[in-house]
């Protein structure tokens, strides 16, 4: 327990963005206190031993989008960041499979088994997307300007961005426009013909959103996932040794190294506002902490509608936050396994189990899964993104045993009739049955099953509606409109109250970016 109760800054929420902001502020010499509601740090990026001997990255399961400069500036490798590469993506099909690996030649051959044309196109596609990713970067790394009353620095930022955009080639600009507006299926249809390939690629356009691959706007989410940057290589996914919680722990240790105080099991009830200024926070247990500024790493709905009184905020702002769309669409199923799954289409142990396994055999599979959800049911045959962390890091499970992490879509937060125990188990069964279609032995291997519905994600991790991105990544919720116009630069209508969660520009994923940029904005490094 900390002795002082007056801080320069209090960060609400010990998720990776909150911790990142705290680390940056502490690094700049501020007296910082981080308050986490749960007993563990990391928010959605946590590792827990749910079943004895088996460690799970309970919620977030891969790291791809962590910004290189955040890793360096906060010395994360020094504090325990160890990212193991996920080598391949394996899509099991009926009697066949699609495999993409880190080796370009091999990927070419594997795709060419299905379509030579696609194999060639694939070689061009990656670098093109990389280029577009580069073109988008400066936009992501700029503080989103106030679109209503831009400040001088906003105008100069805008001018720089306009110049940047002007210098794009017509081709880049065309692709960028298309990626911002199209559905991932439409975008991929312009390039490829082999459906399982398109479906698997389009899946990165639906992860974390309430959209199907044919929904306009999903192409942007796909691009968002293409901006993963590990060791400077685009589209490189990684797994944190020891589980995703290790990423948060590394940031936490970094923050502590720079002098921040971190307290768990400290649930903030209210931000204390006096004369339109935040002056501290009140915990549920009645403790109060004073500080010059308060920074919330929670999502916009919690940050404003729960921690503050509506009367303290301008009514149009309250309306905007109420209209801010956070739509939970995904669930998580964690399995403790007695052995390795055996896929009918590619029996035995092999490289394919060391990478991502994607249950996305066709657009229809994904779309039908989405159809179930949009009418209020969980998917009977869901889309899944699966990894076997124990294949990458044996210490995740006892010898010979394995852990399997299944990210599942769709499971709507607003399920017809609401979520309850039997619905949760039915959802878990749907996942296992779908998986068993491709790997029939899975049912005999399960030692323990943890099913997390969006409602569980909300109650456990405080993610509103269980949305992993703190808000849909749609055009009208990006940049200067994330989370609300005028307040997209991490400031809020309450003086000295700031936001730094994924609900701010540039959005979700384990990027550390909102936390970094919020801190830099507060410190005046970024304008």
């Amino acid at each position, binding site marked *: 327990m900390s002795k002082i109760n007056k801080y320069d800054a209090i960060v609400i929420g010990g998720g990776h963005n909150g911790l990142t902001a705290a680390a940056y502020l502490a690094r700049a010499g501020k007296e910082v206190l981080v308050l986490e509601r749960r007993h563990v740090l990391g928010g959605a990026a946590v590792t827990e031993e749910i079943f004895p001997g088996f460690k799970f990255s309970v919620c977030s399961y891969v790291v791809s989008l962590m910004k290189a400069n955040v890793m360096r500036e906060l010395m994360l490798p020094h504090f325990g960041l160890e990212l193991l590469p996920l080598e391949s993506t394996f899509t099991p099909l009926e009697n066949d499979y699609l495999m993409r690996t880190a080796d370009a030649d091999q990927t070419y051959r594997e795709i060419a088994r299905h379509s030579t*044309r696609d194999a*060639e196109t694939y070689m061009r596609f990656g*670098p*093109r997307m990389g*280029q577009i990713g580069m073109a988008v970067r400066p936009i992501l790394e700029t503080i989103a300007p106030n679109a209503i009353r831009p400040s001088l620095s906003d105008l100069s930022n805008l001018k720089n961005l306009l110049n940047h955009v002007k210098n794009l080639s017509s081709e880049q600009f065309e692709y960028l426009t298309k990626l911002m507006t199209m559905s991932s299926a439409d975008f991929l249809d312009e390039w490829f013909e082999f459906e399982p390939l398109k479906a698997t690629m389009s899946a990165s356009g639906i992860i974390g959103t309430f959209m199907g691959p044919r929904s306009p706007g999903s192409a942007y989410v796909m691009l968002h996932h293409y901006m993963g940057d590990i060791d400077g290589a685009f589209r490189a996914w990684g797994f944190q040794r020891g589980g995703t919680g290790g990423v948060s722990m590394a940031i936490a240790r970094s923050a502590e190294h720079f002098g921040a105080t971190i307290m768990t099991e400290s649930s903030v009830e209210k931000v204390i506002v006096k004369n339109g200024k935040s002056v501290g926070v009140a915990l549920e247990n009645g403790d109060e902490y004073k500080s010059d500024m308060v920074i919330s790493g929670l999502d916009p709905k919690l940050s404003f509608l729960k921690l503050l009184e509506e009367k303290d905020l301008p009514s149009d702002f309250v309306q905007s936050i109420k209209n801010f769309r956070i739509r939970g669409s995904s669930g998580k199923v964690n399995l403790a396994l007695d052995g390795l799954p055996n896929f009918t289409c590619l029996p035995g142990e092999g490289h394919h189990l060391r990478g991502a396994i994607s249950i996305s055999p066709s657009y229809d599979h994904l779309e039908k899964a989405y159809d179930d959800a949009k009418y209020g049911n969980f998917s009977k045959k869901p889309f899944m993104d699966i990894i076997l962390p124990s294949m990458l890091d044996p210490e995740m499970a006892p010898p010979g045993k394995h852990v399997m992490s299944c990210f599942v879509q769709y499971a709507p937060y607003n399920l017809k009739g609401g979520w309850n125990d039997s619905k949760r188990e039915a959802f878990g069964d749907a996942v296992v049955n779908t998986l068993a279609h491709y790997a029939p032995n899975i049912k005999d291997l399960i030692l323990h099953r943890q099913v997390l519905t969006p409602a569980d994600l909300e109650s456990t991790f405080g993610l509103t509606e269980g949305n992993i991105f703190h808000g849909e990544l749609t055009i009208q919720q990006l940049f200067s409109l994330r989370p609300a116009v005028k307040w997209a630069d991490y400031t809020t209508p309450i003086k000295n109250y700031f936001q730094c969660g994924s609900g701010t520009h540039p959005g979700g994923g384990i990027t550390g970016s909102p936390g970094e940029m919020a801190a830099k904005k507060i410190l005046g490094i970024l304008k």
Partner: protein
Amino acid sequence: MIYKNNFHAETQLKLSPFFERTSKLNESQEWRRWSGYLSATNYELSHENEYFAIRTKAALLDISPLYKYIIEGPDTQKYLHRLVTRNINICKIGQVMYTPWCDEDGKVIDDGTVQRLSENTFRITSAEPNLEWLQYNAMGLNLKIKDDSKNTAALALQGPNSRKILNTVAKDSLDQLKFFWMINTNIKDCPVSISRTGYTGDLGYEIWIDPKDALTVWDILLEKGKSYGITPTGLHALDISRIEAGLILLDVDYISSRHAIIESRKSSPYELGLGWAVKMNKKNFIGKKALEKELARGPEWEFIGIEIEWDQLEKLYREAGLAPGLPSTAWRTSTPLYYNNQQVGYATSGAWSPILKKYIALGHLKSNFAMNGTILDFEVKIEHFRKLTKAKVVKTPFFDPKRKRSCPK
């Protein structure tokens, strides 16, 4: 000393139809990846014998990894005429044309040979997969494109004795087969096509074979060729000879415009020394408009040969207390070229030419400096330190024997 082994390992790389033979002959066990195939780098511990086989005897190379496409149908001539920069309308049956092809900005996508097999059938070879581009531009035309890469095995028989060997094994004489022409004939009972083409700049042939006949043809060539010095040859030796011949290599000397992610990485045919292959009197072909403009203003870059002057190089080595030591194989690292302390270009590949006894390289140079005889400074690293040494711009090919084109009287 021969060390017997019985090991075998599974591989995820493709194996050519000749692999059963080449794998046993490869004493060095040095392999390189070529288009996803396992290809011999050199069969002996050093590639020297193989190099000299190309220049003095006969070298046998497995070139099956080349990409091969068969294009067939009434519109094929019209189609290829629009696709490539050379004039396909004058390509006769049995004739072969070397040509680059460009995108609509006049930047080279790939280069290869176009072989006219019959009135309406052509084979096109390329370094990279090109099916997507080929198919794309065929839309609306009456023709079929088949990826024939796997269905045709290919050997290159190169060197002064190559004709003699083929004359002993082929049903028809090759004496009258002219440079860049081809015939259909039989070797043993296997139907093959033989084209008088190659990537060595020497007298040589390429043999196109049904994969099921691959081993038969290989065996008889080695058997009958033995007294002519036939030598299974790997890619190291080939690389030196193609530099001597001034022939460009995709992904080494230039990058396909389909894959170049920035403009400056792309090259036009003019910038690759292939201006002779661009036929501007053709009514239309892909990239013509852009190339017309480029021709009008003059290309920015030129592709040149350079000869690194020996005396100064030797002096630099002496100063370091060393005798001149050059890499024995061809190099592919981009190396700066200077003029008056200003970088004006870069060499992309180079080698010591054992036959010419010269240190030669190929490279890109800003056009203003590309006149023959211009003296440049070439960067060399001697004992970890960078030095500059004189190099002269020269005409390519560096090595161009008469036998390459001539026929016996």
